[in-house]
């Protein structure tokens, strides 16, 4: 037993390092889980007269997807979002984050628009209120307007099935 002790300690260390190596350092726990989603009111892309505010979604479970036209990973998840919308799975609101070059309307027209609303967060202030550190980030917001989950990084079918679907089931949708 005694002669195996160093090896056992070594393996325990390796276990910790291996776990640490595969953690995503950008996956920072959000302080908003279980708390009300911050309120805001922003003009819509392509229709600056109209505005969007989270209160409009009261009573339904929805996704707040923070994206930007300059973000390459957002284009990777665009297809997944499109198929979710086409299947009528859940309403998705696409917060257009810091789109300084004003490209969102043209991009959505060209590639398809998976969003029910596209609020325009030009200076990124609403992003700061939500603790956004980069795009894409996606929040699941429940019928009472609380943040149920946050996902950092693009959504692929695997992430959707393993992370989002169980959460939505839990919320009863």
């Amino acid at each position: 037993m005694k002669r195996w002790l160093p090896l056992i300690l070594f393996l325990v260390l390796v276990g910790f390092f291996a776990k640490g190596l595969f953690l995503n350092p950008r996956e920072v726990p959000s302080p908003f889980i279980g708390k009300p989603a911050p309120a805001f009111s922003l003009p819509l892309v392509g229709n600056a007269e109209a505005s969007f505010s989270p209160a409009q979604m009261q009573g339904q479970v929805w996704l707040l997807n923070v994206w930007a036209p300059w973000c390459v990973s957002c284009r990777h998840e665009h297809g997944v979002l499109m198929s979710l919308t086409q299947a009528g799975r859940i309403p998705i609101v696409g917060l257009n984050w810091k789109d300084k070059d004003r490209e969102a309307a043209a991009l959505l027209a060209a590639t398809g628009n998976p969003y029910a609303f596209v609020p325009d967060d030009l200076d990124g202030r609403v992003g700061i209120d939500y603790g956004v550190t980069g795009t894409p980030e996606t929040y699941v917001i429940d019928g009472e307007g609380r943040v149920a989950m946050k996902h950092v990084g693009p959504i692929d079918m695997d992430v959707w099935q393993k992370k989002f679907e169980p959460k939505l089931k839990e919320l009863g949708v």
Partner: protein
Amino acid sequence: MRAFMLVVVLALAPGFALAETQAGTREAPVHAEDPVIEQRLRGIADELRCLVCQNESLAASHAELAEDLRREIRTQMKAGLDDAQVIQYLTDRYGDFVLYRPPLKPVTYLLWFGPLLFLAIGAATWYVILRRRKTLQEAPADPAKLAAAAALLDESQTK
């Protein structure tokens, strides 16, 4: 070997950079309108983590988000918030992760007191080893062996 490592690193890199940000390499513009606020900003921004380049402070980072956050801190300070309130404003949004000095609370006890725990384990191990060594030294030598050794010494001296 080095080439192989490079390939491995390059292959892994996109996985770690899944979510991207607008990180710019240009210099952060200097705002010197209000030296008092700049001084205060520098004071607290050194203690805050840039959430994009996570090993850089908010004061040192040139990432666009860090720039936005510095602008936000200036706005809050101009609105009359004191330093503690500004830090609270940021932790409300980004969590304790934004602080380089994690606050003392039950989930961080292990972090704060872990080193003491390891020190205690080390001290206990040391004590046990010392005690064991003491008992080893006190073990009486076998008289038969001592006699044999003395006989050998005698032999070599008389020769």
